[in-house]
């Protein structure tokens, strides 16, 4: 038995691969549910109804998908250029704390239509700044950016913890470490009344479209893909590798920072150190499930959010720990890697 590279990748297989991967992950996670002594199909049924069964549940799922789309895009655009940004979690938090700092400051005297885009930009810049550190270390000292961007996540969360326990602490929070709330007119308008769903969803979808066009239709898109496929070849062909990577890092870090900004302005209104249940890390899964395609990120984020929101309801009803959602999406990352492999190779005897 041996593996043979396919001459071309069959389109049907490429399209089917995420579906097969998710199905395989659900089967494997089903074994864990069965091991816990619960009926598997009923559990999955309850996850679906928990995520979409009521109007409220559906809006909650879309709310949860919003930051996942942005962190998923952050990972997708970076990975496409083989820039391993695993620091989206830290960039998310820096974006969030930046918004909390400016949105509760004298700047909040500005009218909403000026303030909201300003805060978006500030959050994105904070995320960018954090991503430029590992990139600089890579370009200047040849340090693998995976480990540095990972380590910076811990630094960023501790920095946020220091801020909300210090200069940005809300004096009205009964001693809880949380930041001062952003001004009311900095909060994002709701998409649907009496729900938490806010216009951040539209921003995230628009971002996916813009990134898609950027990658498919511009010189920068071509250069960033070339940088990922074959860095030496790209340099030989005249691609300014360093400059391309800086742009990719800014986009990637910026999107993750924007995700943090939008989460503060759309959902919470203030920052705590549990603002993100691992959105940065889940973004990696979302990007891989989407096969790094910006439009696919939208669907992959919806799947991931469905698992997380649905598992909450299922867990309450059936006594299966909510961690089953984390297990399932992590498994789907692994199965997706294998599925992508079999779009490129086949087994020959």
């Amino acid at each position, binding site marked *: 038995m041996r*593996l043979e590279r396919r001459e071309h990748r069959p389109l049907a297989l490429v399209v089917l691969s995420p579906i097969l991967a998710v199905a395989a992950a659900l089967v494997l996670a089903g074994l*864990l549910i069965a091991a*816990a002594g619960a009926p598997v199909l009923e559990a999955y049924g309850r996850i679906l109804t928990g995520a979409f069964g009521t109007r409220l549940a559906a809006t909650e799922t879309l709310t949860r998908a919003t930051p996942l789309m942005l962190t998923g895009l952050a990972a997708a655009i970076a*990975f496409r250029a083989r820039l*391993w940004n*695993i620091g989206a979690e830290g960039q998310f938090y820096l974006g969030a704390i930046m918004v909390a700092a400016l949105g509760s400051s004298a700047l909040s005297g500005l009218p909403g239509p000026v303030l909201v885009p300003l805060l978006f930009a500030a959050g994105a810049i904070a995320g960018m700044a954090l991503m430029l550190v590992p990139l600089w*270390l890579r370009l*200047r*000292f*040849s*340090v*693998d950016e*995976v*480990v*540095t961007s*990972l*380590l*910076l*996540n*811990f*630094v960023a969360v*501790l*920095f946020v*913890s*220091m801020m909300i*326990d*210090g200069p940005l602490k809300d004096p009205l929070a009964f001693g809880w470490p949380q930041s001062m709330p952003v001004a009311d007119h900095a909060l994002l308008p709701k998409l649907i009344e009496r729900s938490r769903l806010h216009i951040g969803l539209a921003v995230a979808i628009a971002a996916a479209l813009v990134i898609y066009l950027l990658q498919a239709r511009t010189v920068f898109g071509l250069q960033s893909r070339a940088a990922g496929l074959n860095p030496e070849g790209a340099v030989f062909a005249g691609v300014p590798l360093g400059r391309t990577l800086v742009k990719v890092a800014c986009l990637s870090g910026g999107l993750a920072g924007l995700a943090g900004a939008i989460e503060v302005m759309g959902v919470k209104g203030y920052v705590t150190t549990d603002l993100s249940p691992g959105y940065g*890390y889940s973004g*990696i*899964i979302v990007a*891989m499930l989407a096969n790094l395609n910006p439009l696919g990120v939208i669907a992959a984020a919806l799947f991931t959010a469905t698992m997380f929101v649905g598992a909450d309801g299922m867990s309450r009803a059936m006594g*299966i*720990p909510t*961690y*089953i959602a*984390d*297990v399932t*999406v*992590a*498994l789907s*990352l*692994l199965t997706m*890697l*294998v599925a992508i*492999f079999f779009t490129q*190779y086949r087994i020959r005897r």
Partner: protein
Amino acid sequence: MSAILDIVASAGLWAAVLRIATPLIFGTLGALLSERSGVLNLGIEGIMTFGAMVGWLAVFNGADLWTGMLVAAASGALFGLVHAGMTVSLGLSQHVTGLGITLFASSLSYYIFRLTVPLASTPPTVTPFQPIAVPGLSDLPFVGPALFTQTLPTYLSIAIALLLAYVVYRTPLGLALRMSGENPHAAEAQGVDPIRVRYGAIMAGSALMAMGGAFLTLSAFNSFFPTMVQGRGWICIALVVFASWRPGRALFGALLFAFFDAFQLRLQTVLGDVPYQIFLMMPYILSIAALAVMARRARVPQALMQPYRRGER
């Protein structure tokens, strides 16, 4: 200044250095073994978490402490097998596979823990490894309490570091390991099967990582809680680079790192007005600094992160 001298001159600090270093020694050696064969294993953070959970769970359910360590090691080897299957046999991205293993292993740990141990206001505990006073040596003034009253896994970790240094540089097995990581094609030509070597190195390395995790719940602490590994795995990956992929230096690096960590913990009590988060950031910033200093100087295994397929260049 005298306060700082007092810290360095206390036996407690040096005892803490060895205690803090132990999981890092296990983890760094595990990562080093795997990378020496040519495969980066970013599953380390999750494998350590799983080792911490499963080792503790075994002891909590009545196994003795060493059985707990063994169960952890076996679970680590299993995750290593998955990583090897995906990165060696299929040649998938070592970065993404490793991260996937980390996300999977840590969430699986939390799932199993929550399922088998009911929620309680105080986490359930086990009786951990007790410090062993080395006869004779532990009675020495200062050096005795500082170095010779550790738990057995700590001594074991140091012994494994010395053993690995010997195996890597002085045995045919070590030569096969280094060849697989430097030039698998040449290794194959010499009758070494790089694929088998890589499978073995990844699985043995992952077992060491899991034992490092189990040290946390069976010796350093006595209970398991989510996120307890706190980036130690990533720090180990940085320490491998700092050690320039040499086991002896890995031991030294882990001890040096643990010294700074133990030192800053004690410095916190002296410098009470500095926010404690600054101190907690130090290990991570220190790791990044160590990487920046060493990355260019370190001698990277030449075939690190290059998948090997027979008959393909």
